[in-house]
């Protein structure tokens, strides 16, 4: 729901890296988005062209890796993936597993730039 501001945050992070490493143009951007981050992949992709227009990332390809929700079940002593819509319940033993291991990511992973 806040995809445009996420896109602008990405551009700011890209600018910071570009400034440090003298990068003038970015061809592709790899990001990681968790299932609980509230970001809709399609909406982020949709906003990308407009958000990057006139920046060093204009025309770049945005690649979104979606990270599923993973919790830690204290009872099973292992990482589990809850069934969608079941909350944070361990799918194996049915006990609540409120410790979120993955699924909150909002990460700029890497850039691809002209060599």
């Amino acid at each position, binding site marked *: 729901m806040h995809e445009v501001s996420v896109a602008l945050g990405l551009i700011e992070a890209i600018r910071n890296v570009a400034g440090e490493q003298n990068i003038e143009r970015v061809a592709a951007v790899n990001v990681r988005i968790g299932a609980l981050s509230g970001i809709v992949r399609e909406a982020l992709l949709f906003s990308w062209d407009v958000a990057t227009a006139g920046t060093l990332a204009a025309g770049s390809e945005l690649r979104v890796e979606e990270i599923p929700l993973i919790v830690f079940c204290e009872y099973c002593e292992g990482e589990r993936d809850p069934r969608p819509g079941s909350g944070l319940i361990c799918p194996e033993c049915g006990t609540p597993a409120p410790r979120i291991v993955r699924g909150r990511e909002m990460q700029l992973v890497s850039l691809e730039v*002209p060599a």
Partner: protein
Amino acid sequence: MKLRVVEVAANLMLKNDALAAKLRARFAADGTLVVNLLSSPGSGKTALLEETLGRLSRTYRVAGLVGDQATANDAERLARSGAPVRQISTASECRLDAGMIAKALSGWELPRLDALFIENVGNLICPAEYDLGEDLRVVLLSVTEGEDKPLKYPLAFNTAQLALVTKIDIAEAVGFDRAAAAASIEAVHPGMDVLELSTRSGRGIDAWLALLERRIAAKALIPAG
């Protein structure tokens, strides 16, 4: 065109988290309790804050910050409580962030506060991601909403310390299933503190205010650095 890969691994929330840490340090030095209220639109955040600010301002120095995408209606309602209230117009943004709080506080002539209440934008998804430097995150669930809301929005209920079940005076009329709501809260936040209340009938309000007063007292005791 030959390309090379530049590894970055930057967490996009770091900027907000750093700003939130600054706010938290400032509120700790001032001994100000900060409460962040989250809920869907129409769950009763404004009504509850009207009551809360009105009652607490008799004894404490309290203020409110209200996030709203389009209107100043909520801030105007809250200002009637007599407490200082400031509106944050978030425009297209669906949540408040720490930068917006810092900006709203700067240049606002306020006494040292005992408590600051932040009414987030009505939305259970995005606000859950943004730390505002608060001590207490409270999520509201009204009895007219589905009892499975915690399952649909696990992060809001997982990251909040307290859940308020609001509009409890009409629970029976709307067929609210108390056990089902409790079970879905338990599924995302085992042992979560839950209070039932109604600003209309007054039920549960004293317990809510007593909880806040305890938290205000505890925060005030922390000696300023």
